[in-house]
C-alpha cells in the first residue's frame, strides 16, 4: 500500500514537493510506518536528522495517530515534528 505523507516544519526539507510516498505492507501500524519513513529519509534525504522522525507525530486532518493505530487506507497523512507555535 502506498501512503502519501505531507511534510511540515523541518521535515519539509526532506522533499521540495512537500510530501513523500512510502510503501507499507497491508495492515501496518503507525509504528511500522515510522520505521519505514526513517529508512526512506536515511536513503533519500540524509541531511535530515533521522532522530526527528522518532519524536514526530503522525496525523490525519482530524487527529493524531499513535503508534498502535493501523495506517488508514486511501488517506493522506502528515508527519508532524515537535511543534513551536506562538
Amino acid at each position, binding site marked *: 500500500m502506498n501512503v502519501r505523507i505531507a511534510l511540515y516544519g523541518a521535515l519539509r526539507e526532506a522533499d521540495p514537493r512537500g510530501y513523500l510516498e512510502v510503501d507499507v505492507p497491508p495492515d501496518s501500524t503507525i509504528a511500522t510506518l515510522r520505521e519505514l519513513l526513517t529508512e526512506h529519509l536515511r536513503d533519500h534525504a540524509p541531511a535530515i536528522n533521522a532522530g526527528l522522525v522518532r519524536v514526530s507525530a503522525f496525523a490525519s486532518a*482530524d487527529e493524531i495517530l499513535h503508534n498502535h493505530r493501523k495506517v488508514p487506507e486511501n488517506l493522506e497523512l502528515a508527519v508532524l515534528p*515537535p*511543534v513551536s507555535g506562538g
Partner: protein
Amino acid sequence: MDDLHVAVVERQLAALNVAEALDFVSDPRFGGIAVFVGKVREFNLGRQVTGISYDLFEPLALRTFRAIGERAQHELGAPLKLYIAHAKGHLSLGDVAVVVAAGTPHRAEAFQACRLAIEAVKHEAPIWKQEHYIDGDSAWSEGCSLCQPESDATAHDATGEDGNAVHGHHH
C-alpha cells in the same frame, strides 16, 4: 461552542487584529477581558532575528484550537468567550504572530482562560516556526513533541515571553 472564534490568517493577506479579538470577547455579561499578543522579537539566544516563517497543518490546527476552547470552557465552569488566531507565512520583526483573548465575568477567570489557551496553542497545535537571522542563516525552532509527552526537547523562540517552564522546558 458559539462563543469561540478560531482562525489561521495568512500574513500576506492580512495582519492579526487585536481590536477584532476584543470586540469578539466583549459581552454585557463580562467585566473581565484578558488578551495575550505574541510578536516577533529582535533577539533570540543571542542571535538577531529579522523575521519568522510560520508553517501550519491548518485543518488540524483549527481542530486543536476548538478543542482548547472546549477544554477552557469545561475547566473554567463560568461563562466564557474565547478568541484564538495564529498567523501563517512570513512575518517581519514586530508582526503579531498570535492573539488569544478571553472574556469572562471576572478577571481571575479571564486570566486563567487566556493562560490556558496560549500555553495549549504553543504546546499542542501543529505549528512550526523558522527563524531568519541577520546573517542570512535560518533555523527551525525546537519544540514540543506531539507523540511523546515526556519529550526532553528544549525550546526557545523569538516570540512572546520566555515564560515559565510549565511542563519541564522553557518557551
